[in-house]
């Protein structure tokens, strides 16, 4: 009997993926066989190359900033105090302002591109993920994920593109003007703006966390109740094998949960891979401006020090905007991964 089944078995045709999937896999330029042949040292080299490409800009900017401030300090010391100090300080702050402002404008563009690309990824990922969650019995959670969470992330992405990042651009231009003119009032206004924006981001983060947490609790309760009712109905309605059928339903749902968990983990890794380089750039810019600010303050260049303080705050705010967006995405997806419910 067994040998007859083995002889007459139907072909599964699972040796190769479908042509559409094969096209997507071939876009990366790396085949499965190539990846299987990678050694650990090759992987480390690849990660190192990617990290150096991602962090090249802030590191070179940090070197340029330190060189420029050191040179302007040397020039000031060479000429001594007196008539030339004001002129040299003005020229130094013009040069440092131009250097810093172009770097920060590039950073704003990169933050915007990262947020938009992540949102485009979510538009494709969320419906698939919701569909799998529904197959696993989490109807309410999947509906909330594909409805409310996607709407919230789209709203935040649009707010980042249309409101927050233009505000950051205005802030950087304002800060550069404040330092060039040396007006204390404009510096205080720039600091107040930074505090207000920071408070707004914290409030938005708390609100999103509250909404996502409440939604998670409510949809989890509904889905658990629905699953229990379904099991009880099956075990009560079907005679003899009702309990076995109810257990089979739970097993099927658990299997789909495993697939859902893998999808969620893959999405978290992909989004984390796109988020980490730009976040590290924001941190490195913050560090570069902080160190340059200490050097400027120590060498008596007040205006350059002012630019460094204000721009360090600006780099921190750009990082905070990214953290808010990805915090919301990670929180919702990880809740769905861990608890089986999300949105």
């Amino acid at each position, binding site marked *: 009997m067994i040998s007859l089944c083995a002889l007459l078995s139907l072909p599964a045709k699972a040796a190769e993926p479908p042509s559409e999937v094969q096209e997507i896999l071939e876009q990366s330029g790396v085949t499965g066989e190539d990846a299987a042949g990678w050694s650990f040292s090759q992987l480390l080299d690849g990660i190192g190359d990617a990290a150096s490409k991602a962090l090249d800009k802030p590191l070179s900017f940090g070197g340029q900033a330190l060189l*420029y401030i050191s040179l302007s300090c040397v*020039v000031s010391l060479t000429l001594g105090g007196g008539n030339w100090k004001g*002129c040299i300080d003005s*020229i130094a702050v013009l040069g440092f*302002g*131009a250097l810093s402002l172009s770097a920060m404008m590039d950073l704003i563009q990169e933050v915007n591109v990262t947020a938009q690309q992540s949102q485009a990824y979510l538009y494709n990922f969320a419906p698939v993920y919701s569909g799998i969650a529904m197959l696993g019995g989490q109807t309410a959670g999947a509906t909330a994920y594909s409805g409310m969470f996607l709407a919230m992330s789209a709203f935040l992405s649009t707010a980042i593109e249309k409101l927050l990042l233009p505000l950051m651009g205005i802030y950087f231009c304002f800060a550069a003007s404040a330092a060039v003119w040396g007006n204390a009032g404009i510096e205080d206004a720039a600091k107040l703006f930074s505090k207000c924006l920071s408070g707004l981001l914290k409030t938005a983060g708390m609100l999103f966390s509250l909404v996502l947490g409440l939604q998670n609790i409510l949809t989890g309760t509904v889905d658990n109740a629905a699953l229990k009712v379904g099991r009880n109905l099956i075990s009560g309605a079907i005679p003899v094998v009702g309990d076995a059928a109810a257990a089979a339903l739970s097993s099927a749902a658990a299997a789909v949960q495993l697939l859902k968990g893998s999808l969620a983990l893959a999405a978290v890794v992909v989004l984390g891979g796109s988020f980490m380089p730009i976040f590290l750039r924001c941190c490195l810019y913050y560090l570069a401006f902080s160190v340059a600010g200490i050097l400027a303050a120590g060498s008596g260049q007040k205006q350059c020090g002012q630019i460094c303080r204000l721009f360090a705050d600006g780099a921190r705010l750009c990082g905070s905007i990214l953290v808010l967006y990805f915090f919301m995405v990670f929180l919702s997806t990880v809740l769905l991964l861990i608890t089986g419910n999300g949105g």
Partner: protein
Amino acid sequence: MKFAALAVVCCVFTLALKKDQPAFAFLVSLCGAACLMIMIAQQLEPLVGWLRALAQYTKGQSVSCLLQVLGIAIASQFASDLCKEGGLNAAASAVELAGRMLALLQALPMLQSLVSSFLAFLQ
């Protein structure tokens, strides 16, 4: 030691000639100061070359502009002090003013870069 010795010798000659030949005293002072500046420039030539090489790795012209402003400031200060030593205070003020104007003109590309960043954002 060489700089100090040259400066002291010039000073002695200047003081010796000042009473009877003030014009020659001024010339001795001028030549001594010029020799000192040339000797300093020769000593600093490798450092300036290194800074120019570093400036090529930086974005924009900020570092080279700062070096040019330093040169303009030193030349202007030198000429101004010589004029003051010769009793020409008006010429000294004019030279200082000219030096500051030239230094600010050197900073014009940086101002243009700043303004173009503002305009790029506004557009």
